[in-house]
């Protein structure tokens, strides 16, 4: 029997959010949008049973009303009197997180007989609109066909059992295949393997004298995918630049990892080995950090893509060592601009505003529901991200020192814990390794999933319990490639045998290959000694988390997969992990010829300052930040919003993860793709400088600071693209060495491009640098808001003629050439000096100069503190670097984006102490904090070039994203 229960608000409260979004689409006639929640419940339930379910479980008696009927659909599904009804439900096979909760709630009521539950949302839209407009509203706002559909009749709610699966071993005739066949097999099977790789696999099986099975091919494709294997970054590269050639045998090992090895810091506990990089925290704990991207899934299903992106990266610290407790998130997004014209959108592409809202909601729901604070981040807009947004998610974990390492023992059992396995995310890893096309949403629909944060929270709770009871030897997460990568990775040194039919399934009908490569979320794999397995299973059972023995770690050094006793995979671990053919890729880079624009310096720079503050990239992100719980776990010390009204832009975030200790963790990010358009080397350098500056600005230091690199690039099969990537990696090496800040982990996502017709649109090569550091005493931290009228304003660090890639140039529509550079050794000395001054209590406020330079930094400090300020540009230490014959100019000094600079507020009585502490550094006493609201900048000639007040500055900064 099928029951339909519909729950709606008694006062027919309408959803103003959806209405606003409809207006954004340019559709004006809509007057109201009501939303009702629909439950379709299947089972042998009586009328009185369904009444109890509706009344006691599904409805809030104070605010809601319900109705029910014994049919899955309503009578009036069509348009009635100026009101249109659109009912949206999930596609078959897509995880509906509400289903499990409702089933549990019904059982708790004591009502038996429920078989399954489906949910839907019913939108009742009132007003005047055409059928075409209704279609636009539905498609652009109410549902995403990748995961949902509009209910049209009873068949829309399919409860049919999927067909049973009957085992049939599938083999592929590789030994007998021509090169052309090989290419076809790779393409048709969505394997994304190159001809050279296919040939290598053919050779392996020719020697074995047999045909590979489909699951063997899939396993190789997953393990060798760019996503899992990082074959470009770890591959051989023939690099040419300025007439010089250099052959890299392994780019990663010869740049980023090399710096770490050479720095050899004793506080680095585990680097580039585990699921995240681990550093020392205090005598008892270590902390670990990882950031990843989930770009392609977020492009086609923003909510689900971002949701599972964060869910995935949280499992990295959870799967590091013997399991770290996730303590904070940091997220960085790159989108097209929110006001992008609808009619310019390429086919198959979602509007940037919808992508942004979906991504923010996805991250919000996963982070908030897991109870992990999202403490900082960044959002960048550039229309080259329209078809291929970037969604970086990072997570920090903390674990006891003695739980920081793992080792799989032969004879241990393989235990799979967490969510059940379905068809979700098949080919996710290979999908993310190719480019997006307008058909991506169709062919790759299976690659998209919706996360279940509550499941992951349950899994995390049980894992940490089992960890503290010493119940397992090793752990890893199921990420890209699902079990195929987790199992292959864990069994690399020993060998492993897995019985695929033992894996708990969400529904029947999965083939053995689908089971193996599914990327169903919220799963982890443990290596458990036989004598502890019962106790371990008990820990999970007690809290309703699935845990199943699915195999055993062996001594065979082979990956053996079985389905109902039949062998379906028998691969040598050595071939799987080391068999990838090494190809030399060509890379070439030459600095593009960029011209410095020539124009007269405007007399009045107020409009420029306001315009930069209103730039999408600079403006307030409060609308996003407040949707994240940034304070759960009660550890926050420096929050993302600071200042007299809790709304100024903080630099790094500081948290105090051990509640009875004042030791802190500091997290920051540096990202600026505009510099990469001039020179990726200086982009990487500037990003590193920015991440470190932020740590200094809140009172941290560089003693124990570690970095993560996260490269998102276009098509690196093109030598020019790969050349830029090499150049950025070189920047990472030099800066890491110069700042003595080792990289501890990283990630790359290549092929971030979008094909429109025949044209390829590539994202700008983008490197996110994330930094983590330990604060000895959080009580010495400071924030960026001016604290007191009368405080002296200093600029720390040298200003150069570096407007290339700046936001000032952006307001004029030009890029320029004079990209900011970094002298890491000198920067380090300066940062350390400032850090000591801050720790000695000599500084009241400190903010780093980044986008918009001195002008924006000083303005933000003023309005965050609720004070006015005056600044004299003639006091700013300045040197020419690019144009040594050029003159100093007001706009140049105010908006140059030179690195390693800070604006600092100091009490007059601490002037001497501060100047003494900063002796030897470029330092300028440039002005003071004012009691009134006026914000004035005096130019080199002594005249006023900016005259405004902190309220106007703040308004310019807050208005764009006040949604």
């Amino acid at each position, binding site marked *: 029997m099928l029951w339909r229960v519909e729950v709606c608000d008694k006062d027919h409260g309408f959803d*103003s*959010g959806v209405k606003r979004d409809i207006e954004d689409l340019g559709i004006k006639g809509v007057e109201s949008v009501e939303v009702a929640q629909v439950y379709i419940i299947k089972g042998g339930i009586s009328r009185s049973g369904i009444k109890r379910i509706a009344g*006691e*479980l*599904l409805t*809030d*008696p*104070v*605010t809601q009303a319900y109705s029910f009927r014994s049919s899955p659909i309503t009578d009036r599904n069509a348009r009635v009197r100026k009101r249109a009804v659109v009912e949206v439900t999930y596609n078959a096979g897509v995880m509906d*997180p*509400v289903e499990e*909760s*409702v089933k*549990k*709630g019904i059982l*708790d*009521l*004591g009502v038996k007989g429920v078989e399954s539950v489906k949910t839907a949302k019913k939108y009742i839209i009132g007003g005047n609109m055409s059928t075409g407009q209704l279609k636009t509203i539905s498609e652009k706002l109410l549902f995403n066909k990748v995961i949902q559909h509009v209910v049209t009749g009873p068949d829309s709610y399919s409860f049919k059992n999927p067909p049973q699966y009957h085992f049939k071993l599938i083999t592929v005739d590789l030994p007998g295949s021509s090169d052309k066949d090989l290419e076809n097999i790779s393409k048709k099977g969505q394997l994304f393997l190159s001809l050279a790789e296919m040939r290598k696999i053919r050779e392996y099986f020719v020697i074995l004298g047999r045909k590979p099975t489909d699951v063997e091919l899939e396993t190789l494709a997953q393990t060798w995918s760019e996503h899992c294997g990082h074959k470009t970054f770890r591959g051989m590269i023939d690099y040419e630049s300025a007439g010089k050639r250099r052959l890299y045998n392994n780019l990663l090992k010869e740049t980023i990892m090399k710096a770490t090895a050479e720095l050899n810091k004793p506080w680095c506990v585990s680097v580039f080995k585990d699921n995240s990089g681990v550093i020392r925290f205090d005598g008892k704990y270590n902390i670990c950090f990882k950031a990843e991207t989930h770009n392609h899934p977020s492009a086609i299903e923003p909510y689900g893509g971002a949701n599972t992106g964060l869910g995935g990266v949280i499992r990295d610290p959870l799967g590091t060592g013997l399991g770290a407790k996730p303590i904070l998130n940091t997220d960085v997004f790159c989108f097209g601009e929110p006001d992008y014209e609808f009619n310019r959108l390429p086919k198959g592409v979602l509007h940037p505003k919808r992508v942004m809202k979906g991504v923010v909601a996805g991250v*919000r729901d996963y982070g*908030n*529901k*897991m*109870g992990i604070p999202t403490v900082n981040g960044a959002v960048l807009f550039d229309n080259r991200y329209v078809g291929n947004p970037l969604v970086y998610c990072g997570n920090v974990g903390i674990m006891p020192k003695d739980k920081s390492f793992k080792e799989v023992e032969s004879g241990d059992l393989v235990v799979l814990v967490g969510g059940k396995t379905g068809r979700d995310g098949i080919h996710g890893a290979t999908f993310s390794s190719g480019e997006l096309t307008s058909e991506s949403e169709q062919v790759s629909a299976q690659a998209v999933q919706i996360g*279940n*944060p*509550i499941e992951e*929270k*349950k899994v995390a*709770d049980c894992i940490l319990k089992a960890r503290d009871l010493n119940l397992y030897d090793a752990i890893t997460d199921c990420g890209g490639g699902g079990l195929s990568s987790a199992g292959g990775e864990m069994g690399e040194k020993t060998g492993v045998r897995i019985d695929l039919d033992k894996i708990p399934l969400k529904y029947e009908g999965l083939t053995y290959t689908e089971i193996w490569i599914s990327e169903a979320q919220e799963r982890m794999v443990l290596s458990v000694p036989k004598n502890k397995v019962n106790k371990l299973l008990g820990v999970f059972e*007690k*809290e*309703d988390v699935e845990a199943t023995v699915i195999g055993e770690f062996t001594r065979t050094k082979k990956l053996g997969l079985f389905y109902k006793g039949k062998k379906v995979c028998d691969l040598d671990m050595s071939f799987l992990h080391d068999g990838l053919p090494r190809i030399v890729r060509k890379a070439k880079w030459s600095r593009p010829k960029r011209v410095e624009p020539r124009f007269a310096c405007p007399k009045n720079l107020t409009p420029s300052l306001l315009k930069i503050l209103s730039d999408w990239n600079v403006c307030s992100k409060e609308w996003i*930040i*407040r*949707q*994240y*719980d*940034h*304070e*759960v*776990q*009660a550890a926050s*010390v420096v*929050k993302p*919003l*600071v*200042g*007299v009204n*809790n709304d100024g832009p903080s630099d790094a975030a500081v948290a*105090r993860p051990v*509640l*009875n200790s*004042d030791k802190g963790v500091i997290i920051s990010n540096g990202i600026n793709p505009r510099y990469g358009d001039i020179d990726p080397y200086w982009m990487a350098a500037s990003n590193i400088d920015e991440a470190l500056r932020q740590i200094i600005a809140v009172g941290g230091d560089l003693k124990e600071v570690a970095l993560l690199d996260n490269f998102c690039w276009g098509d690196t099969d093109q030598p020019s693209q790969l050349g830029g990537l090499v150049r950025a990696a070189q920047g990472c090496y030099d800066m890491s060495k110069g700042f003595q800040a080792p990289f501890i982990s990283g990630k790359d996502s290549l092929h971030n491009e979008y094909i429109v017709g025949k044209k390829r649109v590539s994202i700008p090569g983008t490197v996110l640098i994330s930094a983590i550091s330990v604060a000895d005493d*959080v*009580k010495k*931290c*400071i*924030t960026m*808001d001016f*604290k007191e009228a009368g405080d002296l304003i200093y600029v720390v660090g040298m200003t150069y003629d570096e407007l290339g890639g700046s936001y000032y140039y952006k307001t004029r529509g030009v890029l320029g050439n004079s990209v900011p550079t970094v002298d890491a050794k000198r920067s380090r000395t300066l940062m350390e000096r400032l850090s000591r001054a801050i720790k000695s209590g000599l500084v009241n406020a400190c903010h780093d100069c980044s986008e918009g330079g001195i002008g924006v930094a000083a303005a933000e400090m003023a309005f965050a503190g609720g004070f006015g300020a005056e600044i004299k540009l003639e006091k700013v230490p300045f040197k020419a670097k690019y144009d040594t014959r050029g003159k100093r100019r007001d706009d140049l000094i105010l908006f140059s984006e030179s690195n390693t600079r800070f604006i600092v507020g100091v009490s007059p009585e601490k002037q001497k102490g501060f100047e003494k502490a900063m002796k030897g550094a470029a330092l300028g006493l440039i002005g003071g904090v004012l009691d009134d609201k006026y914000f004035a900048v005096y130019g080199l000639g002594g005249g006023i070039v900016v005259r405004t007040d902190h309220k106007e500055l703040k308004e310019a900064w807050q208005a764009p994203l006040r949604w």
Partner: protein
Amino acid sequence: MVAIKSRPKVIVLRAAGTNCDMETAFAFEHAGAISEAVHINQLVSGEKKLRDYHILAVPGGFTYGDDVGSGKILANELKYKLAGDLEKFVGAGKLIIGICNGFQVLVKAGLLPGKGASGEQLAATLTTNDTARYEDRWVHLKPAKGLNSGFQSKCLWTKGIERMIYIPAAHGEGKFIPKDDEVLGKLWANGQVVFRYVDPYGKLAGFPWNPNGSVDNIAGVCDITGRIFGLMPHPERHLFASQHPRWTRGEAHREGDGISIFRNGVKSV
């Protein structure tokens, strides 16, 4: 030898999706109690007994994903699976606190505002914020009596709190609505209104000071005995000065404003 007064035992209830259990347990320990995080399954199975504790704390989180309605599924679980034990616990004069999701659970289970003077059920709920979105922001709470002299809150958890307190709220469904004016009137008359959202000057105000649009700016209520207390904002997130959003501006006190609530609870056992 100094006589050691026995420390009260607090059960911090966990379920799927609870996520403020650790800091809530810490807050009680910091206030002098012994606290233990216990999974609801352990109570249902009988492995742990509610009667072994003096205080029940239902912490924040998203129990069962807040699917169906915030706190609803855990509320039903308490109602249908632990009804007897809970009744005895309350009957024995023991204390209960619900914070954020825990408040939603207590309200939806009917424990708050609970029964009126003549045993009638006082119906109320917590529903979607007027902004229609989840928000994290700090709020000023004023003890209810300060606004309506004559109406003194009975709440044991807030005894002696005279001045405004400042703690963070973080929720999407925190708008408190009594069923009707009659219920609202009784809540006032019974001294069940505990905290109200106010602006920095202590005046009633709308958004953002009242972050969710609660009726009469009500942020927290107690039952008619004053022993069961629930509130949307998070006192456990403000135990220390460094948790204050403007501590770097010298605005924090030596201790966070939230600790007094936990001390009162521990003292009242």
